[in-house]
């Protein structure tokens, strides 16, 4: 890892990190980027494993979508995160793509990022000046731009330990049933008390603003409620209100605003069910 960050820091030209390569190679092939250096981090041991720790999970940067899906404990604790990562591309892409790569592309439509934000995930960054850990929401700063500095690599993603009666879910809207980029994405993570009252919630939306956004107002709409119709309506309204979308080839602004609320509501219902809510 040290060698990799050193290589990246020393390279004077255009340097890129290769994990799964499912986006990098497309950009390479279409002449969109012309790198002077590509660093493949897949053979660095620290990037290859999923570790279960007392305070949660540590997911190496080069762990693929397919590997996440095959990890029973992770899938049980964070089904929404895993299902979001599994929505990135086809089976072919799943064998290669990584959540870290998805995050570092800094696309507002990245599928795994809303789920990671809703999960309060953090990333461990290694660079020439050592290690630092920051929340996921601080990584993307603009479309295609991250807060990472020259020579820095995300080594792993940290997911917190789940309190009892917690559940998360991610839903996205695409015109087909597979193979599309999200037109809207919504992730919801909730924790309930024994009476089914929501005690904690985080809500994040994708493809409705220049970056994936955390929506605290939407979370507030759920906390302290039994996530009944009124709370869900308030959640949907808060999500729609938080959207700052554009019209593009994938959908209209109007459509995104409306569907963000619909998906957040549906995701919240799934998350609640997963948390054991009735």
């Amino acid at each position: 890892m040290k060698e990799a960050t050193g290589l990246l820091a020393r390279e004077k030209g255009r340097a890129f990190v290769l994990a799964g390569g499912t986006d990098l190679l497309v950009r390479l092939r279409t002449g969109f980027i012309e790198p002077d250096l590509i660093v493949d981090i897949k053979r660095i041991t620290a990037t290859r494993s999923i570790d279960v720790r007392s305070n949660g999970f540590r997911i190496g940067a080069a762990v693929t979508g397919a590997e996440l899906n095959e990890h029973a404990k992770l899938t049980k604790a964070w089904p929404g995160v895993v299902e979001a990562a599994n929505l990135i591309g086809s089976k072919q892409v799943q064998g290669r793509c990584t959540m870290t790569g998805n995050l570092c592309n800094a696309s507002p439509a990245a599928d795994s990022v809303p789920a990671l934000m809703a999960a309060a995930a953090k990333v461990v960054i290694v660079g020439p000046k050592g290690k630092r850990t920051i929340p996921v929401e601080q990584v993307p700063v603009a479309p295609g731009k991250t807060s990472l500095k020259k020579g820095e690599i995300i080594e792993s993603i940290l997911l917190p330990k789940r309190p009892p009666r917690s559940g998360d879910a991610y839903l996205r809207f695409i015109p087909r049933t597979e193979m599309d980029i999200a037109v809207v994405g919504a992730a919801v993570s909730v924790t309930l008390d024994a009476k089914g009252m929501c005690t904690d919630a985080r809500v994040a939306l994708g493809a409705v603003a220049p970056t994936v956004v955390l929506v605290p107002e939407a979370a507030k709409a759920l906390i302290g409620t039994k996530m009944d119709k009124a709370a869900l309506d308030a959640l949907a309204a808060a999500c729609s209100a938080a959207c700052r979308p554009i019209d593009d080839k994938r959908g209209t602004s109007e459509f995104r605003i409306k569907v963000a609320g619909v998906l957040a509501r549906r995701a919240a219902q799934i998350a609640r069910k997963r948390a054991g809510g009735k």
Partner: protein
Amino acid sequence: MPLDSTLQGKRDFKVVGTRPLRPDGIDKVTGRAKFGADATAPGMLVGRILRSPHAHARIKKIDTSKAEKLPGVKAIVTREDLPDHTDGDALLYDVLYNIMAREKALYEGHAVAAVAAVDTRTAREALKLIKVDYEVLPHVTDVDEAMKPGAPILHSTIFTDGLEPKPKKPSNVVRRYEFGHGDVEAGFKKADIIVERTFKTEATHQGYIEPHACLANVGPDGQGELWVCTQGHFMVRDTCARLLGMDISKLRVTASEIGGGFGGKTTVFIEPVALALSRKANRPVKVVMSREEVFKASGPTASTSIDVKIGVTKDGRITAADATLRYQGGAFAGSPVEFGAMSAFACYDLENARTIGYDVVTNRPKQAAYRAPGAPMAAFAVESVIEELARKVGMEPIDFRMKNAAREGTRSSYGPTYGPIGLLATLEKAKQHPHFKAPLSPNQGRGMACGFWFNFGGQTCVSLNVNSDGTVALSVGTPDIGGSRASMCLMAAEELGIPYDKVRAIVADTSALGYNDVTDGSRTTFATGMATILAARDAIKKLTARAAQIWGISAEAVTWEKGYAKPAGSNAGNFPPMSIAEIAAQAGATGGPIAGHHEYSADGAGVSFATHICDAEVDPETGATKIVRYTVLQDAGKAVHPSYVEGQFQGGAVQGIGWALNEEYIYGKDGRLQNAGFLDYRIPVCSDLPMIDTVILEIPNPGHPYGVRGVGETSIVPPLAAIANAVSAAAGVRLTSLPMSPPRILAALDRKAAAE
């Protein structure tokens, strides 16, 4: 080819109608089959094409001097290297202009220069070093915008044809067409109910998975070879030879296996450029389009804007039908609006019908044929109005269609009177089909539609050689896109009375056979099939003559039965039947090789009809649509290999589903295509679809010995309308624009809610 009544009548088949394995199957499941990009040659160079980034621009200067100096660059070709040899042939000049821009670049992606270099990287670098001085001009990509006065004009030479008096100002409207009969105004006066609506459809691409690819090899003596994926290698040869000023005899073209075409490979794009590069470099040059180039610089189909007005009496009889169709076909004349206008009302028996079509040019790639060119959009508009009218008069749409359906003896809306046709039969079968009565779940709707396509024959040449062991080598000149070699083997085996696996069919190169038209117009199983049957009959004549010679009796005294020559009767002599193998073994001693041929212009293709039923489910909160059930009923005349007939039905229906729901060319304000890739040009994926149920009807075509009709194209005509009718029923609001993408459906639902 006159319609010969002796051709007809065979309905008692031994092998035709069975489902044997295809002869090219093993190669295709093992990866051995060689497609366009799979060929190599010693010393091969990589060819790349520089394309215009502008939708409309005057090309003031092209400076290739820097690129020429780059090590590894072996040839550069611009408009200067492709002088005009078209000799006043306007259609061919358009092809020349399309393959390499001349004074102007007319669309984003228009070729402006090409490079041949030792490797991909060098070729790519060289393209960057070519400096093109553009004067950017205003552009137009929408069909209705292009027709407005004051729209940017593409060609100063186009003065709308078909208008009286002839216009004095140039226009983007190339031509006005009118078809029909009767008096529509009088017809509308008799109507109790009239529905009039305007529809729009976006341009779609054939979406074949194999990008255009070719390997050209021309020497200084002007002799050349070309390996290419195409629907018609004879067309490629003749077109390229004429564009490059070569003798046709000097260019030999071999058709590779072809990875889909659907009409999109019925013309040339990269082939003349590859030949020009090879000629200049004196080395083999391979050119393969990227997927982005396929979208931007091959031939998608037209986008359209259509008005339809139909009147009916209270008891559901159509009194008049009128339509105006506006199709843009890209930067050159030739949108398929004439076929849209001819086919629009072809399913109905109409006293008064009129269609007016406008062929319009815009700053988009030159359209190419796409499966029943022009017909699906017209059917979308007409069948949507038909469904609405049926509901308004209180009839089941199927009964309304049956009441007004065209039948034998109906004067078609495009002119001629129909012979035996299968439209009513498909409607009757549809009504009996379990799908028709199946219950629907909430948010689901059912729609149906009928469709028509002409089909045609074309120039065809087949050679059938009897080998010394009695097996048969069949050479055809129509590339096999979807299993046609299997069908040819079936028909040859049927006629000769030998097993299917004793016949091997190949697609011969252009030096081995006479001219063959392109594999298009649903013509191959019909026309090449009929030529195969007639070539087999020719061979049988020769085989029986040889048997007669061996037996020392007259040729008339020998008949052919189940693969054997037999004396015609007891007075002809008492000889045991002689097999094809026995006769073939003695060919050398009885006069030489035995071969059957047939060369002709096939006509009498016989029109075809289909009825489709579709169930769609619409999510009222998101506008997402799912096709939950789909049934195709179509007349095939005679299904030679039923599996591949079903495959044509299913494939056409699914292309229609894509067109109806998600596929579209999306242009930005800058006139550039925004979705030139399979990520955002969304063709249906496996998980989008249900099984596609098929029903094959067999109403024999009197123009073919076995009754075969073309089947490839008709299947894409009804889906747009069938799906629109289903979605409109599910959503409770009429959708009039394609694709019916989720934002469009949701917006329509919102408008409906606001109105209620």
